[in-house]
């Protein structure tokens, strides 16, 4: 298995709060009972997988992005910077150029095209990346600083860090952001298999449908995990059957599971049924992803 990148299993959902972190942390810890594994929290706007692990910090670094900084004496107020910015992150207001670093997408257009080099790019901290070790489990997370708006560059950088440092492992588990917008695309686009976790409610079904369509557009092999099975109705099950999507597992609705989660404990260690479900999910993901690591 050496010289291969790991099989990347991304755990995503349409709706938030359906159990991405529950599944990601339990699956990663379950795998770590047998082999080294890396869990990457790509929900950089609100990373919470780390709440379940206390380990040794082995590396920490700042995440940065490049944004232009106005060099007033060089400026001729030609207005080109404002014209080329698709994100309205550079404004020319009379004799002043205003730069909004949070809106900037680091495309360099204003900086490169400025005829007098009056907008040099400088680096700006956007958050931090941490890498922890808990026995066999490597845990990588990035956390955006408060007020930072752009998750995508941080997600990309966090993936890159994991790729550079954990190529020798067999499996990577990615805890993805909710929704179906750019951060989710960035988080899942290199995955070998995507697990969509949902709850069996009308709201869960609505957002699952959007997530399925998104993953189909990305041509990702996928399966569905129904969490809190027993509440709501059977519409999610019917939908998956109609659309030919494998239901990997149904995690029962249980007060005990909620209690364990809310006290920061791993569920499968206390509930054998969940451990069996994890085993089934993992076997299926690896079987389907095999093409990706052959």
């Amino acid at each position, binding site marked *: 298995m050496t010289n291969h990148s790991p099989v990347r299993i991304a755990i995503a959902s349409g709706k938030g709060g359906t159990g991405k972190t529950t599944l990601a942390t339990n699956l990663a810890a379950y795998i770590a009972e047998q082999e080294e594994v890396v869990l990457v929290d790509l929900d950089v706007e609100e990373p919470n997988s780390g709440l379940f692990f206390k380990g040794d910090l082995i590396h920490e670094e700042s995440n940065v992005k490049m944004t232009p900084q106005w060099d007033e004496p060089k400026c001729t107020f030609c207005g080109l910077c*404002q014209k080329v*910015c*698709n*994100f*309205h*992150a550079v*404004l020319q*207001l*009379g004799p*002043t150029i*205003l730069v*909004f670093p*949070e*809106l900037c*997408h680091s495309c360099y257009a204003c900086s490169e095209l400025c005829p007098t080099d009056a907008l040099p790019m400088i680096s700006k901290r956007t958050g931090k990346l941490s890498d922890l070790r808990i026995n066999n489990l490597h845990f990588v997370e990035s956390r955006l600083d408060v007020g930072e708006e752009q998750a995508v560059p941080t997600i990309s950088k966090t993936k890159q860090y994991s790729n550079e440092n954990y190529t020798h492992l067999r499996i990577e588990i990615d805890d993805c952001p909710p929704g179906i917008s750019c951060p989710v695309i960035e988080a899942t686009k290199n995955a070998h298999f995507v697990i969509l976790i949902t709850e069996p409610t009308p709201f869960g079904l609505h957002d699952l449908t959007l997530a399925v369509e998104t993953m189909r557009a990305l041509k990702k092999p996928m399966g569905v995990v129904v969490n809190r099975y027993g509440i709501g109705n059977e519409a999610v099950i019917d939908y998956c059957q109609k659309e030919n999507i494998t239901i990997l597992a149904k995690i029962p609705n249980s007060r005990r599971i909620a209690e364990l989660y809310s006290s920061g404990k791993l569920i499968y260690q206390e509930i054998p049924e969940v451990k069996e479900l994890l085993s089934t999910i993992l076997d299926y993901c690896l079987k389907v992803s095999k093409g990706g690591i052959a």
Partner: protein
Amino acid sequence: MKLAFTAKGTEWDSMMDPRFGRTQFIVIYDDHNQILTSFNNSAVEHEAHGAGTATAQKIFELSPDVLITGNGPGSHAVQALKQINMRIFTEAHNMTIKQAFEKYKNGELNEI
């Protein structure tokens, strides 16, 4: 003096648009010659990002003395508007431009 209103139409009886960045129209009243003019801001609908700063740029070009709007601009737009010393009055929503103007004159709007 020129007053700018964020609005859903171009007449005195048009409703105010509570949004700043994504307002449909910017209506300008010049109390000197008592003329109401408007700028169609709907192009901003296609902007995924930076609607607030784009509209602030437009306000700068229209150069009113006062801005009257609803919810209030976001922090980036406020930063741009403060740069050009714009006086900003908010909470003029669920009413017509005329009613917003009256409230402004009576000092009933919130200045930020």
